[in-house]
């Protein structure tokens, strides 16, 4: 299929530079009709960066509003639309497709020594579905917004809200299929496309965790699609499913919604865990401590993740005994997560640590994800959750996991693989500075929210008690720092495309197939199909002499 691309190679052959997937063709058409997983990865990069900025802008506006207890910058209705927009965009159009779409697409075939995904055209279709879903969301944003919260709780969403619920739902429905197709592609690719010698236990952990993610995508996302369809049936045709006035049950919606949306949390965080495994190994030049357990932990999280949805519903009127079952299972899921943190930390032991930007992000991840995970235990504990449920404590918790975890890992991964993806080095000084700034801004934004939550400030509140103002001002101040900190990488990474130093094939002296091909790789990834006769992360076989 890439042969097709070569035929349409556009003019200006580059100055004796060897052909790679970027300079092979320059036309817009060659990008929009590409079936190269690497180009599709970059298409995702463009898409999710756009949505990240949009979702971030919404957060910026409502954080400003929250500087004062009264309503001043925006009205309640606008405020509600802003947090809804922020949630929907960040979850469905940034966190879920983010790491799998960009890094997963780019790296999985290379990491397993394959030429492309199992279904390259399906892969392109995933991106188009993602963008079409996104366009619906953009339409909603421009047309007047939606105010249900990203959780769409019924009967508010199905009967009472007068905003663009249907258009939003259609957008998410379509994007869901993008997720399913990506998951399907990953599963088949990992099963069928591994190069000779690449056994399951030689796979990089990034592949393992994306594989586990793909399982969740394929099994969980259809439930979301069904749920959306049911809301649409009720809203459009007045078929009673969730609204008690029509004979429905509003709590049923929550069961269905969280049956997808809790596993979706792991869709968002498992790929991040995979990135962290790569970063920690590469910058401590060490095999990931307890490799197999880390791989199995990913699968354990994927399976257990399907059995804990009811912990979102302890005060929903669900039976206390059901609550106890969900509480116990939620406690259990802490074990594989803790094992991972523990093993990443121990990977540093007897390593040879260099503090490049990716490792700074990984260290940030370890700290923030630990706090996110531990506060998750608070929420899994029945007696505490009753008080903190639907307060800022929950908001702080999932931002520690989603932003402190996933976004930190994503940024770390982007820096780590940037030379591979673009053939250019990023400016290390600026990058380190931004990483530290992100860490500081993040903590200042979200740590005060734990305190606010236990004080009893409910989430999704436009106006609030004066007693909460000091902590909210701190949070807004942190958000400003965080917002600026995010602009730095966007700026210098774009800058590096033109002015960055040329990247060698293996700037980090890392092991792994992706570092054994040129930067950027040729369209077919490897000139010759690699044969693997080594384990993952065999740094002890490539000792210190090699760097220089």
């Amino acid at each position: 299929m890439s042969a097709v691309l070569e035929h349409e190679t556009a003019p200006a052959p580059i100055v004796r530079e060897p052909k790679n997937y970027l300079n092979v063709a320059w036309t817009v058409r060659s990008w929009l009709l590409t079936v190269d997983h690497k180009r599709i990865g970059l298409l995702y990069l463009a898409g999710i960066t756009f949505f990240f900025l949009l979702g971030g802008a919404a957060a910026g506006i409502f954080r400003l509003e929250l500087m004062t207890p009264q309503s001043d910058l925006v009205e309640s209705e606008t405020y509600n639309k802003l947090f809804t927009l922020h949630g929907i965009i960040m979850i469905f159009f940034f966190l879920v497709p983010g790491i799998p779409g960009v890094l997963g697409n780019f790296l999985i075939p290379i990491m397993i020594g394959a030429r492309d995904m199992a279904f390259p055209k399906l892969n392109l279709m995933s991106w188009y579905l993602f963008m079409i879903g996104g366009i619906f969301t953009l339409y909603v944003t421009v047309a007047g917004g939606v105010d249900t919260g990203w959780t769409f709780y019924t009967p508010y969403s199905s009967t009472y809200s007068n905003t663009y619920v249907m258009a939003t739902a259609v957008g998410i429905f379509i994007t869901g299929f993008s997720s399913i197709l990506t998951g399907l592609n990953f599963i088949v690719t990992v099963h069928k496309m591994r190069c000779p010698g690449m056994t399951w236990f030689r796979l990089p952990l990034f592949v393992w965790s994306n594989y586990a993610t793909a399982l969740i995508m394929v099994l969980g996302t259809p439930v979301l699609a069904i749920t959306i369809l049911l809301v649409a049936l009720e809203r459009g045709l007045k078929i009673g499913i969730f609204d008690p006035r029509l004979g429905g049950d509003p709590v049923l919606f929550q069961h269905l919604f969280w049956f997808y949306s809790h596993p979706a949390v792991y869709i968002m965080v498992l790929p991040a865990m995979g990135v962290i495994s790569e970063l920690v190994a590469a910058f401590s030049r060490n095999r990931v401590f307890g490799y197999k357990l880390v791989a199995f932990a990913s699968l354990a999280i994927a399976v257990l993740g399907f059995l804990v949805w009811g912990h979102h519903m302890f005060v929903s009127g669900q039976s206390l005994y059901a609550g106890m079952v969900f509480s116990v299972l939620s406690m259990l899921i802490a074990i594989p997560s803790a094992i991972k943190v523990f093993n990443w930390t121990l990977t540093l032991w007897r390593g040879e640590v260099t503090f490049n930007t990716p490792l700074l992000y990984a260290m940030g991840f370890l700290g923030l994800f630990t706090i996110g995970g531990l506060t998750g235990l608070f929420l899994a504990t029945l007696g505490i959750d009753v008080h903190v449920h639907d307060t800022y404590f929950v908001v702080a918790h999932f931002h520690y996991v989603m932003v402190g975890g996933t976004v930190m890992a994503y940024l770390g991964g982007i820096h780590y693989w940037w030379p591979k993806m673009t053939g250019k080095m990023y400016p290390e000084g600026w990058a380190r500075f931004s990483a530290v700034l992100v860490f500081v801004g993040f903590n200042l934004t979200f740590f005060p929210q734990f305190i606010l939550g236990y004080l009893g400030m409910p989430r999704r509140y436009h106006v609030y008690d004066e007693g909460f103002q000091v902590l909210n001002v701190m949070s807004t101040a942190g958000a400003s720092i965080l917002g600026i900190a995010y602009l730095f990488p966007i700026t210098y990474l774009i800058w590096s495309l033109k002015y960055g130093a040329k990247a060698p094939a293996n700037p980090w002296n890392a092991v792994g197939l992706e570092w054994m091909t040129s930067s950027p790789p040729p369209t077919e990834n490897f000139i010759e199909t690699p044969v693997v006769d080594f384990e993952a992360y065999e740094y002890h076989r490539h000792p210190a002499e090699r760097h220089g």
Partner: protein
Amino acid sequence: MNTEFQIFPDAASTAAGKVDALYLFMVVLSVVLSVFVAGLVTYLAIRYRRANNVNRDHVAHGNTIEYIAMAISFPILMGIFLWGAKVCFFLFRAPEQAMPITVVAKQWMWKFQHADGRREIDTLHIPTGQPVKLTMVSQDVIHSFFVPAFRTKQDVLPGRYTSIWFEATEPGEYRFNCAEYCGTNHSRMIGKVIVQSPEDFARWMSGDAASDEPPAETGRKLFEQYQCGTCHRPASEEGARGPTLEGLFQSRVPLAGGQTVTADETYIRESILRPAQKQVAGYQQIMPTYEGQISEEGVMHLIAYIKTLGAPLAAKREEPNTLAPPTEPAAAEPAAEPAAPAAEDNAATDSQGTTP
């Protein structure tokens, strides 16, 4: 209602201490573990930095250390779970003698009614030292009743009763919130619980607004207005077409399908609004549905009245003087009224329109 800066919330209920103790335990545990992880990461990263000349010999290792970590963490996690479940049982199980209050929530206000009929909106007076149980229902979307100082909350659902209880310990004014996002003015769906000493509370209860009718009395009037007594006659009378309501509350009711249910508030509510849902064994389904005809408050009043039918029948029926005359016409009326429902079982739906 705190206007000054705090970092820990007021504690004003018997539950607060229990929740706080568990919370503080978790905080200490989390701080210890976070500091441990952060410390270990920092220590290892610095000790094994490239410039440092240390032993880096590769050591093959099994997974013993992880298994030990699992073995230690499992009992700790189960301990936390059990402690949390214990606190939750305390939060969710109301004591028998709790003072009943009914709550109807709607976008965006809270309506309360005390057992003696006293009504309040967005303000709730309660005494210290007395468990209070709120039976709640929503008129529209899902809301959630949350009193931070009492450390408890419960979602308020449309179409179904939920309840919450607490026993206040400290007089004062405490904010309560709607905690489940419910639309435009969600953040304004707030109010305050005014906790008073039992004496002040008694004074307040006997105060000005004594004109509010007790819910059971309003319920009795509704019962007559809708002529429920036509079919639901006292147990002593023969030939009733509906099951008697005497002693119904909290009794076990055999259903046509062979199951039994406990006649709690939710069951009675459902049986008034959608009688066909749970058909009582031995009776025909002739009762019309009252869905959309009686307000949530009205249903709560009817339930309050039905509860009063629980005690020994004779005494109850004499109690209010006004009760005697209306029952007679109701008993006499069947001659005229039954026409529609008596016609046939499936006439039930037809009679809907004619029901007042």
